[in-house]
């Protein structure tokens, strides 16, 4: 729309991003698991284990409970589909993927929320106690993390005069000093908390628990099996990868290709993969050091994130 990028290369960027997130998401989860195992003194499975799990699950039979409607099989499709759309339009590797002008940060957030809503509805559709429990908890945490998330977006959009993702990234690349301002640092902390809450990691949710008192996400997907479960696992790991890549975009954008050309793209791919991997390792180390919060302590954490995000907006205005 704006730069001189040829249409074909923009589409290529989008495709590369989608494929990258499809493959990179499970690998990221595997990497985080390995780091965790090593820190706990265990050998752990290989990094590519989640991919192997997906291959195994994908061939298995799908079962649904007697009372489900068309929502149940649709939910995994919407979860993966909405994440694929985000991965296609967000500037993860280059500042101008296809239709990047429509990659509005608010729209991205609502697309991810669509996936969460679909999953919660799918959980309730199985008609079991666990489905309802997981959906209730996940939606409560999602609702409470929404204010912090949108106000962080507000803080990040003010200096760029737009909530368009490529515009924010371009502006960050052009004004590197702006990245060290107080509002950025405040927004960064708030955004980390929101990522942890939205992707169901410790200390909000323990992704490896199956204890009914504590599980949130796992309770929602208990009734899914076979190919559907594979899709949900894939969708969840893709969401984690997309959220981390967005975080890298917003706070450490260097390396994202701002000009067309295969070399820039390779550099973009390498730096993004390195940044997301580094973030994943950091989050895994953090996860080892904290215990899971009680469910009713989580709102305090999210309220803290909201307070930080409001401070970020106010300091953005003072600086501007």
């Amino acid at each position, binding site marked *: 729309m*704006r730069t001189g990028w040829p249409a074909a290369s923009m589409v290529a960027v989008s495709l590369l991003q989608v494929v990258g997130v499809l493959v990179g998401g499970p690998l990221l989860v595997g990497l985080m698991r390995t780091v965790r195992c090593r820190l706990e003194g265990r050998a752990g499975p290989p990094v590519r284990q989640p991919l192997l799990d997906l291959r195994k699950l994908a*061939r298995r*039979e*799908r*079962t*649904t*409970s*007697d009372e489900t*409607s068309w929502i149940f*099989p649709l939910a*995994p499709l919407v979860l*993966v*589909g*909405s994440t694929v*759309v985000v991965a*296609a339009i967000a500037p993860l590797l280059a500042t101008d993927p296809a*239709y990047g*002008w*429509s990659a*509005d940060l608010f*729209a991205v957030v*609502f*697309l991810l*929320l669509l996936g969460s*809503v679909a999953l*919660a509805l799918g*959980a*309730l559709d*199985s*008609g*079991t*106690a666990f489905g*309802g*429990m997981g*959906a*209730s*908890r996940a*939606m*409560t945490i*999602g*609702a*409470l993390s*929404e*204010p912090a998330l*949108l*106000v962080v977006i*507000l803080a990040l*959009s*003010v200096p760029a*005069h737009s*909530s368009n*993702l*490529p515009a924010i990234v371009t502006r960050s690349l052009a004004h590197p000093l702006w990245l060290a301002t107080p509002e950025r640092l405040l927004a960064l902390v708030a955004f980390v908390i929101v990522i942890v809450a939205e992707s169901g990691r410790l200390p909000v949710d323990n992704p490896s628990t199956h204890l009914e008192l504590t599980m949130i996400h796992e309770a929602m997907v208990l*009734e899914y099996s076979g*190919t559907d479960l594979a*899709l949900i696992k894939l969708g969840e790991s893709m969401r984690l990868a997309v959220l981390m890549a967005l975080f890298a975009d917003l706070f450490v954008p260097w390396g994202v290709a701002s000009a067309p050309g295969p070399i820039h793209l390779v550099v973009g791919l390498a730096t993004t993969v390195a940044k997301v991997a580094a973030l994943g390792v950091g989050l895994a180390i953090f996860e080892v050091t904290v215990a899971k919060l009680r*469910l*009713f302590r989580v709102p305090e954490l999210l309220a803290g994130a*909201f307070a930080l995000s409001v401070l970020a907006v106010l300091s953005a205005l003072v600086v*501007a």
Partner: protein
Amino acid sequence: MTSDLLVVTALIGLSSSAVGAMAPLRIRMHLSVALTIAACASGFVMAAEVLHTGRAAVVHTTALLPQSGLSMVLDRFGALFVAVSAVVGIGAMVFRLGYHGQGLSSRTASCILPLFVTTLLLVPAAANVTTFLFLWELMAVTSLLLVLVDHRRRSEVASAGQWYAVMTQFGAAALLVGLVLLATHTGSQSFAAIAARSTHLPAGVRDSAFVLVVVGFGSKAGMVPLHVWLPRAHPEAPGPVSALMSAAMVNLGIYGIVRVGDGLLGGGPAWWWLLVMALGALSALFGSLHSATSSDLKRLLAYSTTDNVGLMLLGVGASGLFASTGHRALALVALVATLLHVVFHAVFKGSLFLSASSLQQATGTRDLDRMGGLLRRVPLTGTIFLVGGLAMAAMPVLCGFVSEWLLLQAMLHGLPSSDPAIAVAMPIGVGALALTGGLTALTIVKAAGIGLLGQPRSTGAAEAHEVGPSMRLGAAILATLCLVFGVAPFLVVPSVVDAARSVTRARIPDPLVGGWQVGLAGVHGALAPGLLALALLIAVTLVAGARRMLQPTPARRTQAWGCGRDLQTATMEYTATSFGEPLTRVFEDVLRPAHDLDVSHAAESRYYVEAARFHTSLDDAFERHAYRPASVGLGRWGALARRVPNGSIHRYLAFGLVALIVVLVVVG
């Protein structure tokens, strides 16, 4: 031509009311409904014509109302509301054809319902104070009578009617004083004359008129703290009536605030609009919190109306605040976002209320805790409810998303201005908007997930059957519009921009980019709902294809996992109450739920529990802490006052003497 259509609309409306009162029982309902639909159609054509050409429809006659005469001028701003009322009216009336029960087929109701719809079509055209108040009161009284149609069979209806009557008359009194204040100080009661002269009024008059008008219109719109009638009246009113009230009538409260605040008074100081924003944020949060925690389906929808009105007020307030600090283009954007939300709220809330009435009719209950499994039993109605609900939760590719996005954009771009009021108001506004959005998503997951999915929780739900075709059609019209407007907002955005311009009289270029995108002119990036819809469709289809390729055999149906027991009954499912429980705990300080645990022990030992009953209820905090004490106080005052006239003739003669002396002293 539009002026003739205005007369035609009014005449068809009145004649359908007359038919409803006088026609024989066999044809009464069909004929009056057909005529009401015709009135709505004619109203819609008129409104579309006014919106298209910009030429107002004008009707003046001195024959009908004494003194001032009946004066009606429908400009573009009013036409937008007429069009919305007409669309909701058509949906509700088609639905009415198949709707039975709750007393709507009586002669009174058949006469009043068309009259109510007609007033909804005419109120936005009123062009002087008398005409406006006359139509406004007619609307209030007809809607009150329609809420009350079923009072003989259910006692809650009478109580709901009382609450509604008190609140609406309180609001009307505030409106009367506010508008008369403006009329006397400008020396004319025509809206055009007031608008021309109001800028020269003393600040005190303008301020008090604005506050009174906000109170008056706010009580009709369901603004907190004047919302208490909504969660009572909407559940008790018959289905089509609650849809009309929630999707069309509350809009007129927003209409009034904008018409008086921006139109008649021509904007005002920043504190007016900060007040409106504060009330809006309060309404949005309070409404969404209560709708997230209630398990009565219609009460939930009524609270969500308060929540959406709060969002509209946030937009109105932001628009006024921008205008008062000189940001004309942004003020227009915020107003456009508000009006878009009015339009979209009308279609999604209309479809939600209509399909909720269908669900109530199909299952015999409106308690979510007794529903479940309805998407398989009433597929179309269930899908309509789901579409309306997801639109309300601002899910992408449905209409609510577009207006919420635009409101966020207006708030975002207002921020860099150095005005401290804006700097503080906007982040808090966005926070309120975001929390409301999250809570609405939770509400809809609860309402649709508990009500429509899973196993049926009662025999009524298990034996539910799809409702009649016209009920499905009426709700489906509105649900289809949710999707159409969400994918192609350009169908309404230009008209809304024209409407917003006509009321603010701002001569500035269109602040929005047109076509398939929605976005602000001069800002990089836009929203492309059609593109997102297409991308989502392609992505979901591709993933579905991949799943089909990997696993060609269809899913096997089997029993859900019952933790090792061969027993997975509906009693084990989460209910709406349990779904909202974590939220109730998080907001315990605000909601203050009442718990009551009653345990009876076995006679042999206190360590054995024989039976346990747990009861939990959630009252409205405003009702408990403000309205109940006030009504108790009024009751006491009445009892005290009743002691004074005790029937003794001597005492009355003494009163007369004292009064005479007082008058003589004062006059002398």
